[in-house]
């Protein structure tokens, strides 16, 4: 099924300048795989050496952080919006 993948400005150069692309998959992992297939340049940002998603990338399905909903196994359905963002975090602790 097709979902919308939304990319922030900081990542768009790796996806032909597009802010939103259609990708196929029934899980977040499959959607990421399809995105990398379509835009190999995104692999640098998205892929960890072990083949998973880079630890500095956060993925959201309809604004829900997949770290709390099953990570790459999180299911998606047609029309969902998957947002991929560079992790921006820190803090005093």
């Amino acid at each position, binding site marked *: 099924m097709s979902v919308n993948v939304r990319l*922030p*400005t900081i990542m768009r150069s790796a996806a032909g300048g597009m802010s939103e692309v259609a990708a196929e998959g029934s899980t977040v992992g499959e959607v990421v795989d399809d995105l990398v297939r379509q835009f190999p340049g995104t692999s640098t940002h998205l892929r960890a050496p072990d083949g998973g998603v880079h630890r500095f990338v956060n993925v959201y399905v309809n604004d829900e952080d997949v770290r709390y909903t099953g990570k790459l196994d999180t299911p998606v359905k047609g029309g969902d919006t998957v947002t991929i963002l560079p992790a*921006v*975090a*820190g*803090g*005093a*602790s």
Partner: protein
Amino acid sequence: MGDRPSTRLELRHRHWLEIVAHAWDGAPDEACGLLVGSGTRVEVFVPCRNADRSSRTFSIGPDGWRAADEAVEAGEGRSVIGVVHSHTHTEAYPSPTDVAQAANPMLAGWHWALVSLRPPAPVLRSYLVTDGNIVEEPVVLVGR
């Protein structure tokens, strides 16, 4: 992934006020925001929600990024050039957590600005964090 900085962060006075006000509004949690501009110059401070809702950590979620991207697209030659967050009870200096997060290669060259709310008065400082090395850069006010 953002412009390479030189060794300063240029802000308008109103940005300084907006950043400190946002830090106070977010207390006791840490507050955070993104810096949109070009190179060393901030054109827009984008206050963000702290997705962690924590007094010890912060993270920026899709809502903050959407707001920043709107600011990027509203001006010529803009990009996200840095991040600001508050330390509510410690000095305005990158913590080990900050340094670990600054290793994100997509954030290479970003300005890491920190606001300390520790009494007696708010302090805003900025740093470049590269390969674990912390280098302070001057914060320069360039008009209102």
